[in-house]
């Protein structure tokens, strides 16, 4: 089996450019995801922990990477997805998700994944393995 043309090494996925992350988004994601850690929604708690403000759930960014991937291929083809959380995403940040096919091996492609802030700071870095069919 050969990879489809849009899954060749070097192919860039259509970037996902997100709107600024509001406090409402953080509250909705806390409820919808099940991650109720107050560090993401309660500024009093965040300040007591030594932070200037709340910051986004890492898993919100990973969920955005999930959207990037399912825009690229039907979800049933995604075999695995791994990320390392490299930097905190502040509230009000505007993230961009990007992906690039880095390897093609028989019927599996590896996609490098990055989420970044407008100043170029990488917040998540990872990779997914996706079947070509």
């Amino acid at each position, binding site marked *: 089996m050969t990879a489809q043309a849009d899954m060749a090494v070097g192919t860039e996925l259509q970037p996902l450019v997100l709107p600024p992350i509001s406090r409402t*988004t953080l509250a*909705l994601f806390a409820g*919808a*995801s099940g991650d109720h850690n107050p560090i993401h929604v309660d500024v009093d708690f965040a300040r007591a922990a*030594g932070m200037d403000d709340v910051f986004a759930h890492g898993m919100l960014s990973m969920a955005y990477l999930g959207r990037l*991937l*399912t825009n690229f291929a039907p979800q049933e083809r995604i075999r695995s997805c791994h*990320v390392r959380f490299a930097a905190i995403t502040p509230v009000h940040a505007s993230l961009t998700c990007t992906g690039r096919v880095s390897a093609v091996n028989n019927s599996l492609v590896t996609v490098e994944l990055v989420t970044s802030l407008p100043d170029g700071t990488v917040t998540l870095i990872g990779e997914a393995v996706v079947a070509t069919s």
Partner: protein
Amino acid sequence: MPVPTSITGTYLTPLTVYIDAGRLRFFAKAIGQTDPVYTDLEAARAAGHPQLPVPPTFLFGLELEGPDGFSWLTELGVDLGQLLHGEQTFSYRSMAHAGDTLVLQPRIVDVYTKKAGALEFIRKHTAVTRTDGSPVAELVNVLVLRHPGVNG
């Protein structure tokens, strides 16, 4: 206070979760999902799904609502304000959908420190299966605990 390495190998309380379509739509709204496959049953069926699909990262949060939630950490003296998410991995075995009942079994597989104890890492594996035991996914979660009093 450091988490004892003796928790390595501990199985946390397993959790049985019914996947509700309304909850999946709420998750889709929270992440700004615009693909109707994740919110509209007709679109999901047209894409070959029997019900709304469980999106790629949704399984992560279910565990936090279980009996152990964050409590297994707070009972060990962990301050949630010093807790960070280090890494997360999903390995998928089969698609899950609204209407499925899933069983999550978390297990602590490693506890280690870096920077002379200023950072502590807890690695947890979670097996996700259906009630008949058929595999859905395996999750690997690495939590990072900051110990600000320790100069690393």
